[in-house]
């Protein structure tokens, strides 16, 4: 196969060509209430060719790898229709590598019956909680082998395993419906989603608690975010803005996002990196064959660098960071985050809340999105803070802000960094991409909260 790929890349008139072939196997299990509603096996085989000519791209995706050379030619012809300038694409040393996975407890080796037994147990815990109406459990695992080759002579095979699990407890009373979810994931280790009985029980009880909780009053508050929600905040509020594909052809955004600009106080450090090992966004090479790195987006409050593909790096005259990722062979790689987090400082949780007269403590995530300037993210759980103490439970809140203001409003950073491995990131049509994000507890001086 390696020879076949190499041959189909030879002798073309293009600035750059790459081929990606992918084989995958996946399992999906879905529960709704007491029904195991869906259990399925999915297999996939396909690939794509991407070609660059004079700054224009052609992209062809397919299921059948027959006539690979014809597909290469089609992609090149398309690129010729598009390209009218000069290609800019950062250099990458040709390399050959085979990356395998070593996992403690591979989900492929766990029989379906054992998976079912575990989820039955979690489901029983949720459903046996008084006032719980129903439950949702969605589990999936996937194993992929990706072969990447480029016209520069690079040839890489990478194996990847991913697991994700989302559990939700839905409580209902008097026409009111409230829910709490728990999202987990791992880069293949099934034991990461075992032994959650206590967490699942607490989740179900919290969902019931929400039935009698009041809604927050809309307005501006001092807000304290737990590590999970602060991780979603840093991903939405700043991570997406750091993706250079938003910036590289946008002169005005470049003026705003100029390296060296101050975004926060000197305790604020924000990092993204697939080279940080063992997390869901970790890998050895990105989908353009660039080795992973660890990038300080913000160091001591100052914008230091951003996330790049080879094209955005070359056009902006910066170094590639290995952040070009494609969710699968149906899509070209685009600039994505990997593992994104705020580095820990020294404060304890008590230090952070002790001098807040009235504020909101928002925990755990439900979702988040961004328009670059404005972002919103929602907490699964929230409490009032009164006179330095956690007070009454509130209905889930949606928080919103302006990135240029809000990062500067972070005035306390805790010492308790935690990484959240659940969920996934969506951009353009590519969702959900495995990523992780995290933070210690943080305090935001002023944040807009939607409410009654």
């Amino acid at each position: 196969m390696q020879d076949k790929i190499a041959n189909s890349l030879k002798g073309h008139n293009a600035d750059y060509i790459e081929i990606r072939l992918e084989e995958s196997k996946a399992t999906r299990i879905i529960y709704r209430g007491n029904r195991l509603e869906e259990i399925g096996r999915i297999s996939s085989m396909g690939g794509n060719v991407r070609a660059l000519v004079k700054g224009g791209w052609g992209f062809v995706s397919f299921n059948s790898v027959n006539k690979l050379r014809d597909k290469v030619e089609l992609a090149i012809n398309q690129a010729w229709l598009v390209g009218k300038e000069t290609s800019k694409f950062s250099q990458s040393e040709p390399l050959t590598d085979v990356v395998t996975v070593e996992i403690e407890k591979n989900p492929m080796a766990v029989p379906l019956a054992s998976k079912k037994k575990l989820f039955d147990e979690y489901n029983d815990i949720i459903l046996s909680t008084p006032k719980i109406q129903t439950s949702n459990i969605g589990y999936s695992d996937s194993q992929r082998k990706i072969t990447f080759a480029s016209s520069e002579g690079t040839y890489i095979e990478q194996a990847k395993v991913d697991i994700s699990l989302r559990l939700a407890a839905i409580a209902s009373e008097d026409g009111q419906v409230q829910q709490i979810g728990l999202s987990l994931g791992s880069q293949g280790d099934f034991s990461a989603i075992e032994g959650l009985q206590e967490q699942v029980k607490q989740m179900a009880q919290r969902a019931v608690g929400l039935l009698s909780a009041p809604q927050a009053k809309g307005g501006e508050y001092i807000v304290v975010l737990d590590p999970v929600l602060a991780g979603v905040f840093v991903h939405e509020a700043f991570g997406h803005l750091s993706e250079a594909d938003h910036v590289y052809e946008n002169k005005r955004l470049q003026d705003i996002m100029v390296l060296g600009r101050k975004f926060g106080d000197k305790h604020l450090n924000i990092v993204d990196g697939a080279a940080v090992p063992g997390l869901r966004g970790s890998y050895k090479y990105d989908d353009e064959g660039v080795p992973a790195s660890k990038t300080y987006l913000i160091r001591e409050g100052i914008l230091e660098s951003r996330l790049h593909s080879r094209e955005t790096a070359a056009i902006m005259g910066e170094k590639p960071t290995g952040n070009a990722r494609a969710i699968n062979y149906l899509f070209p790689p685009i600039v994505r985050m990997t593992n994104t987090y705020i580095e820990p400082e020294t404060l304890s949780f008590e230090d952070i809340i002790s001098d807040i007269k009235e504020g909101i403590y928002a925990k755990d995530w439900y979702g988040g999105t961004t328009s670059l300037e404005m972002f919103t993210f929602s907490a699964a759980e929230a409490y009032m803070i009164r006179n330095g103490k956690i007070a009454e439970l509130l209905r889930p809140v949606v928080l919103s802000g302006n990135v240029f203001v809000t990062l500067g409003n972070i005035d306390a950073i805790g010492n308790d960094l935690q990484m959240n491995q659940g969920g996934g990131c969506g951009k353009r049509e590519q969702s959900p991409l495995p990523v992780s994000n995290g933070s210690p507890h943080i305090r935001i001086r002023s944040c807009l909260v939607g409410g009654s």
Partner: protein
Amino acid sequence: MEDILAQAKKVAEQAEVFQVSSKVTTIHFEANRLKQIQDKESTRTALRLIKGGKVGFAQASGFIEPGMLVEMAVETCQFGMPAKFNFPNPEVYPKIDTFDLQIDAVAIDDMVELGEQLIVKIRQHTSDILCEASISRGVASVHIINSEGGEASYNKSLFSLSFEGVLIKGEDMLFVGDSHSSCHPVLDFRPIAEEVIKQLELAKRNVSISTKPMPVIFTPHGVASSLIAPLVSAFSGKLVFDGASPLKDKLGEQIFDKNFSLWDDSTLPYQVASYPCDDEGVPSQRTPLIDDGVVSHFFYDLQTAALANTQSTGNGGRHGGLPTPSPSSLVIGKGDISFRDMVRDIKEGLVVEFLMGAEQGNILNGDFSGNVLLGYKIENGEMTGRVKDTMVAGNVYQLLKQLEAVGSEARWVEGFLLTPCLYCSSLSVASKAG
């Protein structure tokens, strides 16, 4: 497909093979110029079995040995849910127009020209805007066969034109956009250009707004981004059966304003969400969900309908796994008040054009809350400018219980929703500026 079905019939009581093949060409404009042409060809084959009374499922993208697919599906059967339905074998399907031969006559050059014209037109209005546009042309063919003798197939053509522009002044960003899709080629760029230019005109200056409850008008885009997700979840037969829908015991009751009607319609000619049969071979139909404010029906697939002791409404959709109740095209009935008259009626209020993040709240309960990504302030019957740093929050059941007015003109948004503007008398607005 026949091979897979034949092998599956040997080991299972019933079997169904679903196959969809598609070929789509998309051109992308980035930063005002053509950047990429994509050509995607794909085939997906799914096998559903009933064996030992239980449902098994396997799916493959690309080639797979029939025996392998059958083996994968059989492996899941022992854990699958008990099948409450039989695969359908209807006598006739309605004739629904979903294919326009003209789609093949559209050349890549035509698509490039369409995108260029659109961008030029909008930049003539606002030269500093940075434009992204996508134009997509494709065909899909769906084929379903089952062991009960049922067979259905149809072709669909798809064309879409979408635009998004960003205008940056200092640190202020303005996002504008619109899209059209159809089974016909969409060869006229002007409706999108007009809509985007209207948004740019209305957002020319930023104004502040108070934090308090006030009258709000949702435009068609505003309805799609704020109110639809909770309604879709509440009318899904599955959530109703689970008891997770607030409407579970409200069939036949007046829950919404008497001027508010909503139906699901997969029979509309040349709409991208239309089909002669759903993804499990059940004929398409128009299903009233809200009739003059009365909850009149929920939408179902085969299994959920059987569990709930009712009939499938032809809403079995596949999203990477087994069919599940899924809306096709949703239509909200028109009213009799023009948008202009709604605005004139308001002393201080808000027009919501696009709400960001609304689907992140507790949609099961009907709650929505989001940032007004694009919205305009109304002062003394006039739209006076764009509001920013503003959130709205509410509950669709409270909001739709009593509407001030329903718009007299409707339009398609996002390819699946035909809706007029909706005017509600009071909604909570929170603003940083206020």
